[in-house]
């Protein structure tokens, strides 16, 4: 599938975004003092963004419905990431039944100026917001997924890798129950 041209969106300075995100994470750590809880909050914030952002993506990219999880994952990596973050993600490492894949990012604008202190390297999922966004957005188009970072350059890995796992692909949104 050839990538479509990206819609023209208003651009902002990426630094204000990166710095805002950084201060949010710092504030969460200060407020909760528990990295597990911080990870949860970041994921929840991302989810709330995702359930709204998906409509913007669909409206502006003029995309129709995706027929499969495979197609949807490609659209997330090839179209949605470039549109909102200005970086493309490679979609690879499919499992055999096509329900799990990895999004590989070579660059992550959320973490441009970030060096994690040693005490946070173990647990903090600094960019966990992105996983929440993906989960929220795909849920709105009837795909329940798990998304988590399995590689993170902030923790010394080669690339950023988000692992996606499809839990359920609901066929239609209508709450139809065939009782007979």
């Amino acid at each position, binding site marked *: 599938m050839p990538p479509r041209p990206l819609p023209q969106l208003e651009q902002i300075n990426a630094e204000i975004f990166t710095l805002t995100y950084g201060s949010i994470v710092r504030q969460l750590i200060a407020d909760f003092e528990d990295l597990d809880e911080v990870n949860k909050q970041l994921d929840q914030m991302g989810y709330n963004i995702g359930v709204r952002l998906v409509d913007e993506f*669909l409206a502006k990219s003029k995309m129709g419905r995706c027929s499969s999880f495979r197609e949807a994952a490609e659209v997330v990596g090839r179209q949605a990431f470039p549109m909102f973050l200005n970086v493309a993600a490679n979609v690879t490492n499919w499992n055999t039944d096509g329900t799990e894949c990895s999004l590989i990012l070579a660059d992550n604008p959320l973490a441009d100026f970030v060096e994690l202190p040693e005490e946070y390297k173990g647990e903090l999922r600094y960019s966990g917001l992105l996983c929440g966004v993906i989960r929220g957005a795909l849920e*709105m188009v009837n795909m329940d997924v798990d998304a988590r970072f399995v590689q993170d350059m902030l923790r010394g890995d080669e690339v950023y890798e988000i692992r996606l796992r499809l839990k359920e692909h609901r066929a239609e949104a209508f709450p139809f129950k065939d009782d007979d």
Partner: protein
Amino acid sequence: MSLIYSLYVINKSGGLIFSRDFEGASRLDLNDSLRLASIWHSLHAIAGQLSPAHGCGGIELLSAESFDLHCFTSPTGTKFLLLVEPQCPQVPALLGRIYELYADFVLKNPFYEVEQVIKCELFDQAVDTAVRRYPLMLLSQPAGQGQMLAAGLS
């Protein structure tokens, strides 16, 4: 003259979350609008199930003698209905534009609760502007399509 009468937005559970009339006073009170919105929601779903065509997404256009009803369903399940004068061209394009405005002015408003009634003044204004500019949109349409439509109308 192509007239846009009304816009309705229906959430994915069939509740009316927005309605606006552009040509004078509304002919419906709020309760009737709510009832009709959920009836349309059900009809749309039934039509999708009845259709012999595979993968039918429901009703897109209902043509009546005195009006056309265009329906656009976003992949997330929100429906946008426009009531227009019969034979109005380019209404799907206008619906696409309204979907964009919804993404911008409703969903990006941090105090809007998803799936709830839309009370956003910026959205009202943006929709009014889009509807006012609709005749200009018709002028800028590709020539081939315009001729076809003209032939259809004559």
